[in-house]
C-alpha cells in the first residue's frame, strides 16, 4: 500500500487503518486455485471418460442446443467485460458508471441462469434425469455424459449465483463509499471470481456442446 493511500484512509477516519491490497489479492488468487483444482478434477474425470466412451459422448452431445450455449458464452463474456470496465470506472471516481456496469453484470448473470433453467427443464422434460425413462435406454457413455453435464454445469451455475451475491455485497459497499477509487481491492477480488467463473464456462461450452 502506498503512502498516499494511507493518508487518504487517515483523513477520513481519523486513525490509521492497516490495509494490504497485495495480500488480499494474493489470498483471492490462492482461493481461485482451489477452485481450479475442484473443477480441474471434474475436467479430468470428463477427459478420462471421454477417452473411454467417445462414441457415447458424441451421441449424447448431439442433442445439445449449441445456440443457447453460444448465447450463454457471449452473455458471460459481456458480463466479464462489464466487471472489468466497472473497476476502471471506479478508479476514475465514476461511481454511478461503475454501479451501472455492476447492475448490468447482475442482469447478465440472471440471464445466464434463466437460459440454463430452460435448458435443464427441456432435458428433464425429455426424461433425462436420474431414473428417468430416457436415461434408462441410453448407453453407459451417454449416461456418464449427462451425469457429468448436470454436475459440472450445475456446480458452475452455483458459482454464478455465488458470484452474483459477491458482486451484490460489493455494490452495497460502493454505495456506502466503503469501496472507493483508492480502496477498490474488494471490487477487484469480486471481479477475479467472476472472471474465473467465465473461464470455467469457456471450457465447459466446447466440451459439452461442440462434440462432432
Amino acid at each position, binding site marked *: *500500500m*502506498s*503512502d*498516499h*493511500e494511507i493518508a487518504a484512509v487517515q483523513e477520513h477516519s481519523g486513525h490509521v487503518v492497516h490495509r494490504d491490497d*497485495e495480500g488480499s*489479492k*494474493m489470498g483471492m*488468487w490462492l482461493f481461485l*486455485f482451489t477452485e*481450479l*483444482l475442484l473443477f*480441474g478434477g471434474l475436467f*479430468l474425470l470428463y*477427459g*478420462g471418460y471421454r*477417452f473411454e466412451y467417445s462414441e457415447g459422448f458424441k451421441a449424447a452431445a448431439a442433442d445439445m442446443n*449449441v445456440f443457447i450455449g*453460444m448465447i450463454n*458464452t*457471449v452473455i458471460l*463474456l*459481456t458480463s*466479464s*467485460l462489464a*466487471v*472489468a*470496465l466497472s*473497476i*476502471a470506472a471506479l*478508479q476514475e471516481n465514476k461511481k454511478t458508471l461503475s454501479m451501472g456496469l455492476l447492475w448490468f453484470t447482475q442482469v447478465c448473470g440472471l440471464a445466464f441462469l434463466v437460459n440454463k433453467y430452460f435448458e435443464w427443464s427441456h432435458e428433464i422434460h425429455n426424461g433425462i434425469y436420474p431414473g428417468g425413462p430416457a436415461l434408462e435406454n441410453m448407453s453407459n457413455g451417454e449416461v456418464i455424459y449427462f451425469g457429468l453435464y448436470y454436475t459440472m454445469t450445475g456446480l458452475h451455475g452455483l458459482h454464478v449465483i455465488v458470484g452474483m451475491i459477491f458482486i451484490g455485497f460489493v455494490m452495497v459497499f460502493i454505495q456506502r463509499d466503503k469501496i472507493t477509487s483508492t480502496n477498490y481491492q474488494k471490487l*477487484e477480488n469480486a*471481479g*477475479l471470481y467472476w*472472471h474465473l467463473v*467465465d*473461464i470455467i464456462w*469457456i*471450457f465447459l*461450452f*466446447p*466440451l459439452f456442446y*461442440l*462434440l*462432432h
Partner: protein
Amino acid sequence: MSEQGKEHAEHTSHHPTYGTYIMVWIGLVALTSITVTVAGIKLGSLTLITALTIATIKTLMVTYYFMHVKFDNRVIKIFILVCLIIFLILWILTFSDLSFR
C-alpha cells in the same frame, strides 16, 4: 516506504483503458464464433484440439487483461505459474497413465 511499494503504486495506475477492454471483448466473441463454426466442419480428431486451443487463448486473454495479470507484480505472476505447472503435472500424469494401460 520501500522501493517495491512505490513501484507497485505506479503499476496499479497503469490499468488498461476502456478501449483495450472492449477490443479484448471483441476478440473473445470472435473466437467464440470461430469455435462454433469450426465445430460444424467435420475435422475429426482436430475438432477437440482446435476447441481446446481456442479456449486456452480465450483464457489467456481473460486472465491477462480482465484479471489484470499483465499489470500484476512478479510475485503474483510466479504464484500463478507455479499453480498452473502443478495443475499440468496432475493432467499429464493422469493421461499418461490412462493412455498406456
